[in-house]
C-alpha cells in the first residue's frame, strides 16, 4: 500500500504554554453538492439535519460545513464510506488530499490568528462551532473554531507550507 504523505510532512509541531500549532492528519474530506432542493432531502436522509452556515454540524464522528449554496463539506475519519453512500444521489467529489488541516490552539490562538486573518474572532461574533470561508496570506481557507481556544484551518494543499510558515511566524512571540 502506498503511504499518504502530507504537504507538511517536513514540519514539526510548535508548542508553548500559550500556543500550539500542528497538523491534523488522517481524515476524509468529501464534498457533496445538490443540484436542486429535492436532492437536499435525499442528502438529509443520509446525513440527518444539515447545518446552516456559519455553524458546523457534528454527527457520527463527522463534521459538516455548509460551504456554498446546496454544497457541503463532510470531514470524517480516515476510512469513511460517506462518499460512496451519497454517490448517485448527489454530486460527490473527494477532496481529502486537497486540504491540509492545521490547528492553532491555546490562550494566545486568537492573537496569533488576528495577525493573519481579517475576520472578527471575538467569541460573541465567531464563537465555538462556527466556521468561515476566509483568507490567509492571499489564499482561501476554511477557518473552524472548534472551541474557544482551538481553531482548525483547512488550507489548500499546495499553499499549506506557505500557510504554515505564515502562522508559525505569527506565533513566534508566543512561543
Amino acid at each position, binding site marked *: 500500500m502506498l503511504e*499518504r504523505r502530507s504537504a507538511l510532512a*517536513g514540519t514539526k509541531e510548535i508548542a508553548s504554554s500559550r500556543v500550539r500549532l500542528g497538523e491534523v492528519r488522517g481524515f476524509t474530506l468529501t464534498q457533496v453538492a445538490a443540484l436542486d432542493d429535492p436532492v437536499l432531502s435525499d442528502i438529509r436522509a443520509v446525513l440527518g439535519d444539515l447545518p446552516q452556515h456559519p455553524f458546523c454540524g457534528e454527527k457520527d464522528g463527522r463534521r459538516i460545513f455548509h460551504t456554498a449554496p446546496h454544497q457541503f463539506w463532510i470531514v470524517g475519519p480516515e476510512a469513511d464510506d460517506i462518499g460512496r453512500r451519497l454517490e448517485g444521489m448527489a454530486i460527490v*467529489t473527494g477532496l*481529502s*488530499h486537497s486540504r491540509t488541516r492545521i490547528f492553532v490552539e491555546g490562550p494566545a490562538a486568537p492573537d496569533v490568528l488576528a*495577525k493573519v486573518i481579517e475576520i472578527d474572532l471575538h467569541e460573541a461574533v465567531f464563537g465555538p462551532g462556527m466556521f468561515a470561508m476566509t483568507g490567509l496570506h*492571499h489564499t482561501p481557507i476554511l477557518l473552524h473554531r472548534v472551541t474557544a481556544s482551538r481553531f482548525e484551518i483547512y488550507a489548500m494543499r*499546495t*499553499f499549506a507550507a506557505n500557510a504554515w510558515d505564515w502562522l508559525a511566524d505569527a506565533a513566534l512571540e508566543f512561543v
Partner: protein
Amino acid sequence: MTRFHRRPEGGHIDRARQVSFTLNGRSYSGFAGDTLASALLANDVTLIGRSFKYHRPRGLVSAGVEEPNALFTLGSGARTEPNIPGTIVDLVDGLEARTQNAWPSVGFDLMAVNQLAAPLFQSGFYYKTFMGPAKGSWMFYEPFIRRAAGLGAATRAFDPDRYETRHQHCDVLVVGAGAAGLAAAISAGRSGARVFLAEQDALLGGGLLAEPAMESWRQARLAELQAMPNVQMATRCTAMGLYDDNLVVLVERRDHARPDASKGQPRQVSISLRAKAIVFATGAIERPLVFGDNDRPGIMLASAVRTYLNRFAIVPGRRAVVATNNDTAYPLAAELAAAGVAVMLVDSRPTTAAVAPGVNVLADSSVATVAGRGHIQQVTLSGAHRATFDCDVLAVSGGWSPTLHLTSHTGIKPRYDAAIAAFVPGGFAKTHFGAGAVMGTFGLRAAIIEGAKAGVEAAGAAGFATSDGAMTTIQGNDPTYAITVAPPVLSGKGKAFLDFQSDVTAKDVKIAHQEGYQSVEHLKRYTTLGMGTDQGKTSNVNALAAMSELRGMQIPAVGTTTFRPPYTGVAMGAIAGRGIGKHFRPTRLSPLHDWHRANGATFIEAGPWLRVYYYAWAGDTVATAYVKEMELVRRGVGLSDVSTLGKIDVQGPDAAEFLNRVYVNGFAKLPVGKARYGVMLNDDGVVLDDGTTTRISETQFYLTTTTAQAGEVMSWLEFLLQTQWRDLRVHVTSLTDEWAGMALAGPKSREALQLAFPGVDVSNHGLPYMGCLEFDYEGAQIRLLRLSFSGELAYEIHLPADYSIPLWEHILRVAAPLGIKPYGLEALASLRIEKGHVAGLELDHRNTLDDLGLGKMAAKEKPFVGKELRMRENLQAPDRWSLVGLELLEPGKSLRGGAILFAATDEIKGHGRGYITSVTWSVELQKTIALGLYQGGLKNVGAEIICAFPLKDEFVRARIVSPHFVDPKGERLNA
C-alpha cells in the same frame, strides 16, 4: 544662566527613573516619561536643528506631532531612522539622536551662508534657475540641490526590526483620549459595546496632561475605563487613515518596550481596525503668529510652553512674553507667573480678557520684531505699546486649528468657521461623530459633555442602546473662546515664516500670488508649503489667511488643501508588515516538492508556483541540463511533475452539453474513457485556454487547463454556470490541489509503465492514444491518460496528491533499468516548442484560433462561447500576426524571446511584423528554433526574415518554417 530648567517636583515624569541618552554623541539625562524634546529642553538644549532651505537656527516649536523643526535622526547602523520629531519620541536608555541638515554642527553650520543669499531662494527659485541653459540641466543640478537642502538621510541597510499587521474589530472606535475622547469612551463603554480608544501619545489625557487642575478628573476617568473589560485602550497608537466602510489604519509604536525581533516582538504594528461607529476626538493644533524672524529658537507655541511646564515640569528662565490673539494663552501666563517667571502678556485684540495676579498685560499690541539669533533675547512690539522687552521665551498663540485630517480622508471637505477662524469637519457619515476641540469646541466642560453625547450616539449607531451619557464634569462655565485674527503682515523686516519645515515665508506666498499661483493647490506646489513631513499642521490656515488677504477674498472662497493619509509619518516597515522577502507573495508548492528538493532540483518561480527548472543529474547550469533532459525524453524515458496543471471536476447530467458549449470543438459525443484536446475562447472570441478533458463517466469529466490559466478557467466556468446557463445541471470543483500529475514521456515510456503497473494492459490496444484507464494501485486511485505534450509516446499519471511521492519513487525505481530520470520545466517547455504546441506564451489573451493555427478545430454546426465574435472582421483579417516556426540561419548567434520580426527588406523601425514568443535549442534538429507570431503567418514559409532585439543591438537572420519541427505526422505519439 539657564533659559530652561526642571522643577524639583510635579509633572508626569518619574524622577526615580533616570534615563541617559546622547545627542550628537554627547551624553544627557532625563526621566522616564520624558520625550526626547522635553529632555533636551530640560537640559537647556534649545538649538536643535537647521532649517530646510536657509539653514537658519531652529528650536522646538511644539510639544506634539505637529512639530516642524525638531527633527532628529535616531539610532545608528541599520536602525538609523531619519526625520523623527523629538516631540513624539519616548526617552529610553541609550537613545541615540542626531541633529540634521547642519554641518559641522547646529551651532556652526557652514551652509548657513545660504542665509546671506536668502533673497535668491524665494519660491520658484530652483525651477527658474536650474532649468537652463541646456536641456537636462535640472538633472545635472538636482543632486547638488538635494544635498544642500533637505532632511536626514535614510540607511540603505535592511531594517533588522520586525513589523506586524493586526486585524481588529470593534463597535466604537474613539480616536483621541483627551477630555472629549475619555468621556466618549466611557459612555460608549457603558452600553456594553466593544470600544477601542486610540491615543497617539504615550499617556492618555491629551490636553488634560497640561491642566494640573484636571488631574484628578483624568485619573478618575481612567479608573472607570480600566474597570470596563469591553474597552481596549491603546497608547502610542496613531490613527493614520480613514477608508471606506469604517476601516481605520492605526500604527502602534513599541520602541519604548525594546522589542526583540528574534523573539517575534514587533517594533511597530499596523492595525487594520474595522469599527461600526467612530468618534473623532482628535483635538486641535495651535497656530503660530506670523511676524519677522518668528522662527528664532525660544519662540514656541503657548500650548507647548504650557505642556513643558505642567507635564514635564520645565520652567523657562526668568522672563517670558506671551503673545496671543485669543483667550487660550491666558492660563499659561498665570501659571508662568505662579512659577516665578516675569510674564508680559501681549494681546493683539483691543480688549483683553481677565488676567491673574502677577501678569502684566498689554492690549492692542503685537510682536513686531525679535532680537537674538541662536535664541530669542528681546521682543519689540507694535500697536498701542511699542515697547521692547527682554525675554527667555516667547510663547505665541495664533488660535487653534481643529485636527480634522481623519474626518476628511474619505472626501468630506472641511468647513470654515469664522467664529473660531479655523476649519471644522464639513460633515459626518452616518456612523461618524465628533466631540471636543475637533468640532471647534474649545471649552473643557463643553468638550466633556459633547464627548459623552457622542459616545452614546456612536454606541447607538453600532447597535447598542444606552441612555447613560451622564458624565462627571467640572464646575463652572468654560471661558469663552474669543479670537480676532489680524491680517498677516506680508512685508517688513525679517523673514516671516508660515511653514517652518519647508522654509516658506509670507513673502513667498506673495510671489506665488504675483506669478499667478493663486489656487490653494498651486500655491502648495509652487512654494512647497505644507509638503514637509509635518504636512503643514501648523501652517495651513496662516497660509490661507495670507492668500485670502492677497486675493481680497474670504478664506472659505480660497479653499483648503485636501488631507490624505497618513496623518503622521509611517515607517515603511509598518506598511510592509511581514509581507517581506519570500513572503512578499504566497508560494505554491507541488505535492512532489519535497522529493524534488531532496533530489537535486533547481527551482524557478512560475507565477506563484515554485517549479523544477532542471535537475542536477543533467548538469550544473540550465543551459546544459535542459538539453540533456530533452535528449532523455527524445531517446529514452523521462518523468516530469505536471501537478501544476489546472484540474477541474465537471459533473452532472448536463456536463457534456456544458463542455460542448465551452470548447470550440465537440465534446458531446466523447466516449467514456477517452480524452480530447480542447480549446476555449472568451466571449470576445479570443483564445482563453487549452487542455485535455477526459470523460470519466456519462455524467463526469476530468478537465485540465494550463498552469497559468487554471484559476481563470475555473472562475469562468463558475461564472457561466451561475449567471448565463443556470438551467444546466452541472457542478464544477477545482481538483488542482487534490490530484497530482506526472508526465511519463519518451519512446521507452510504455515499457516503464508496464514495469510500474504490471497488471494493467497498457499496450497500444489496451490504452490507445487519447485513451484513459482508471484503476487502483496499492490503495491509490490512478487516472492514466495517454497524451503527449512533447510529441513522443507519452502518458500522464494522475492520482490523489498525498500518494504522489511514493508513486513517483516507485516508477523511478522499477524503470531504472530503462535509464529513466526526472526532467524539469525548461526541458518540458522546450520539447513542446519542438512539437509546435502552443502554451502560455502564445495563449496571451490576444490571439485567435486562426492566429494559433487552430482554426480548423472550430465546430461549424454547434454554438460555443466566442463563436460569433471571433468572426469579427479584424479578427479574421488575412494579415494578422499568426503562428510560425523559425529556424536560426546564423549559427553561433542566438534568438531571443520578444525579438521583433521584420521582413528582410524592411527598415528596422517600429513594431515590425511580429515577434518571437518561445525559443529553444532543438536536440532533434541540432539548431536554434523558435515559435513566433508573424504577419500573414505560414503564407511566408521559406521567407528569410530579420529578428531584431534593439536593446542588445542584435539583428539575426532566420527562416520561417512550419511550427511542427518534430514528427509532424504524429507517428511517435501514436506508436
